[in-house]
């Protein structure tokens, strides 16, 4: 029976099929919210109220011609999208969504899975850099280098912000962290700084305005994706959506007390909490202008990192006091 | 400044070099000077007469001569300086020393009317395409453009 459950776990629920369908839904929510914020309609024609628009885009891109520049490093150019997509999908499996119980240690919920999911989520940034470097175009090269500079800016504050709830809960296993905060809901308020830093750095990881410097269309055309087209570009688009879902799921698991209950209530909690995070991300995108790369780096080292450190100090101090 | 004040200043500084100084419309003046002392006139206009702004330079083919009209402006008065040069050897001194902003206008006049400005820093074509044949200047009277008739079946 466990084999069937693991199989279902891998392919259906938090696995491939769910992530694909739910990420297109989340992209639809994001685009609709962004449109509503700007007093316009957003996609309307494909499906009721444009619900199938992301899937329509994906299918269109899959059918488009797939051009590989003559000067590009072919093998790397083709391998990068697949590598990035798989790393984000495996990160999706680690979310403590359905099959978790305190005692049951399994391949997808073990001591230290928070480090693995954070690492897997940052793999796509390296993939973007390699994509930019492999497609021998000026704009892609600049885009690729910018991805790396951006990475150094937001990676450290992100890790610090993620670890502070773990330190509070005294365990490295997301399932246990979520269980701890379900037991003591008030402790969630202690991590409010870390929650802010995590949401801002997630926005930077997803390269959305105000941090979409690497592929700012008015400066470097398409950034690392300039030379990509057809199926590979579709994979990069899908990758960005799934990364948003997994990132939002991680923040929901760590900062909003996870997804209690078995299959059905856990599923409903997961949808609810990730949509709250997506609402905040869409609001951030609607309200800010794009920062310059040097402003981003100074912002993250002057504000995000100290805030995360302060949060860590508070947590350690309070942990001693509460225990 | 009014027309009389500027007229007095110019007469002091240009002593006899003025061929024609006329006031056709309110707040408009036309000054005609020989092309040799163009730079000196520009300096007088900028420093003495207060024409700090050079709007543009018009290149014109008057049939027998090529003409460059410098349009200057200040608060309340616009002056047009007329410089003529003959067609077979069209040369004018550049005024970039006095008005650095003239760099693009002189390139455009060179492109379209064919007046060469001596020691102009970079005389690359500004508005005409690169493969435009040398020596053909579209705004001269002898150049005609025959547009093929639009045909609708």
């Amino acid at each position, binding site marked *: 029976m466990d084999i069937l459950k693991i199989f279902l776990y891998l392919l259906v629920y938090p696995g491939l099929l769910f992530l694909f369908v739910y990420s297109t839904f989340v992209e639809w929510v994001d685009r609709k919210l962004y449109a509503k914020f700007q007093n316009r309609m957003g996609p309307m024609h494909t499906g009721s109220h444009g619900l199938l628009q992301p899937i329509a885009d994906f299918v269109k891109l899959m059918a488009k011609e797939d051009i590989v520049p003559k000067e590009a490093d072919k093998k790397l150019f083709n391998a990068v999208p697949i590598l990035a997509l798989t790393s984000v999908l495996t990160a999706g499996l680690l979310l403590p969504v359905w099959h978790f119980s305190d005692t049951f240690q399994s391949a997808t919920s073990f001591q230290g899975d928070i480090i693995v999911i954070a690492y897997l989520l940052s793999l796509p940034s390296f993939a973007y850099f390699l994509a930019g470097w492999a497609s021998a175009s000026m704009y892609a090269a600049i885009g690729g280098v910018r991805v790396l500079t951006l990475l150094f800016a937001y990676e450290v504050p992100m890790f610090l912000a993620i670890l502070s709830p773990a330190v509070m809960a005294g365990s490295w296993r997301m399932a246990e962290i979520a269980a701890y905060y379900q037991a003591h809901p008030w402790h969630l308020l202690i991590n409010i700084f870390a929650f802010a830093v995590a949401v801002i750095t997630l926005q930077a990881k997803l390269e959305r305005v105000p941090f979409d410097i690497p592929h700012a269309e008015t400066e470097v055309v398409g950034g690392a994706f300039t030379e990509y087209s057809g199926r590979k570009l579709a994979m990069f688009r899908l990758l960005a959506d799934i990364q948003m879902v997994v990132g939002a799921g991680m923040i929901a698991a760590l900062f909003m007390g996870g997804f209690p209950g078995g299959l059905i209530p856990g599923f409903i909690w997961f949808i609810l909490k990730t949509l709250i995070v997506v609402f905040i991300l869409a609001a951030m995108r609607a309200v800010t*202008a*794009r920062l310059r790369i040097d402003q981003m780096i100074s912002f993250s080292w002057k504000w995000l990192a100290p805030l995360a450190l302060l949060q860590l100090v508070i947590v350690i101090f309070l942990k001693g006091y509460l225990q | 400044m009014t027309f009389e004040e500027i007229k007095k200043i110019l007469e002091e500084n240009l002593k006899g070099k003025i061929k024609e100084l006329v006031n056709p419309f309110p707040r408009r003046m036309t000054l005609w000077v020989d092309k040799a002392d163009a730079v000196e006139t520009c300096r007088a206009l900028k420093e003495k007469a207060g024409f700090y702004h050079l*709007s543009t330079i*018009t290149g014109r083919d008057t049939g027998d001569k090529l003409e460059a009209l410098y349009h200057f402006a200040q608060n309340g008065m616009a002056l047009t300086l007329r410089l003529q040069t003959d067609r077979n050897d069209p040369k004018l001194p550049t005024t970039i020393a006095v008005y650095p*902003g003239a760099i693009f*206008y002189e390139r455009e006049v060179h492109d379209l009317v064919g007046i060469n400005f001596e020691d102009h820093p970079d005389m690359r074509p500004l508005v005409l395409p*690169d493969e435009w044949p040398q020596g053909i200047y579209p705004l001269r009277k002898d150049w005609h453009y025959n547009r093929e008739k639009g045909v609708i079946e």
Partner: protein
Amino acid sequence: MSTFILPVGPQHPALKEPTSFRFLVDGETVVDADLRLGYNHRGIEKGCEERTYIQDLYLLERVCGICSNVHMTVFAQGVEKLMGIEPPKRGLFIRCLMGELERVHSHLLWLGVAGHEVGFDTFFMYTWRDREIVEDILEMVSGNRVNYGMQTFGGVRRDLDEMQIRKVLDGIAALKARTPYYLNIGASEPTLVARIAGVGKLPKAKALELNAAGPTTRASGVDFDVRKDDPYAGFGEHIPFNIVTDEGGDVLARVVVRAKELMESYNICEYILKNLPSGEIRVKAPRKVPEGEVVSRAEAQRGECIHYIRSNGTDKPDRVKVRAPTLANWPATLYMLRGGYVADIPIVMAAIDPCLSCTDRMAIITDPKGNQKVWNWETLRQYGIDFYRKRGIKL
């Protein structure tokens, strides 16, 4: 210092119209900038010599989409001086009203584009939504959203009845309530201010030396505005307004100057509509223009727009020289770009609100090994045809 040449244009998402820049870039800073114009050169000045004055009126209206009314006003009032006719007061007032309505439409458009250049698309959406108010007014008054065709020799072609005046006043009142909000956002949203404050600096001395014009030079402290210096059309009847200048000299100063100019334009429109003299709107104009030459100037949205018209007694002009404000601002832009960041290129270029149709056929192929082949349009076109013929697509 590993510098390389970054070609921007002639097709580039930051440029709404074709121009070609070549930046010598060292890492993220721009060392030097070079400009190639001419992509939109349609030989309008030669075209004017082959058409009658009436036809030229509509040809010059299409020099540029956003400042179409200004070119028409400048040409119409220049030829009126040559003809020696004077439009009636009501005609002059309506001519001024159209100029100011177009300034509102152009500045709101620019505010949106500036927001878009720095990635603030919500600002773009809101400013362009409110611009629809002035677009509807213009469409109601003149019959078209752009290319209004209102000016003609001797006055204007359409009158405003009572109902139209009331609608224009309501629209202006609505806009007057909205615009301070954008000025406030432009100066207080930190991410936007961070991108436009201290960027593209143009000191006053440089602005004067490089003959910049319009809001670009007024934002550097030069109070040069043709509506005040050389009052034309209705401004001769001393319509009260004051020139907006700012000392900042950077892109933020230009945003503030343009937003304040919007407020001035609303006041001018209201003044015009409230004391619109009655009477005729145009006088009869002869078809042939007596011999003469005239320099006609007006304050376009981007700066001083100047026409030189020379007539030879026939019904076709001998020479028409059009210099739109954008050409005056290009030398200043190149100065502003040097020393800035690559990321600032779009916003600094957008700050002078370039209108390229007012002002080259070259493509630069740079392969990564650094050697550049410079192809002209013909060889590039031929390469494209052969490229697709090899793949079996018959052209």
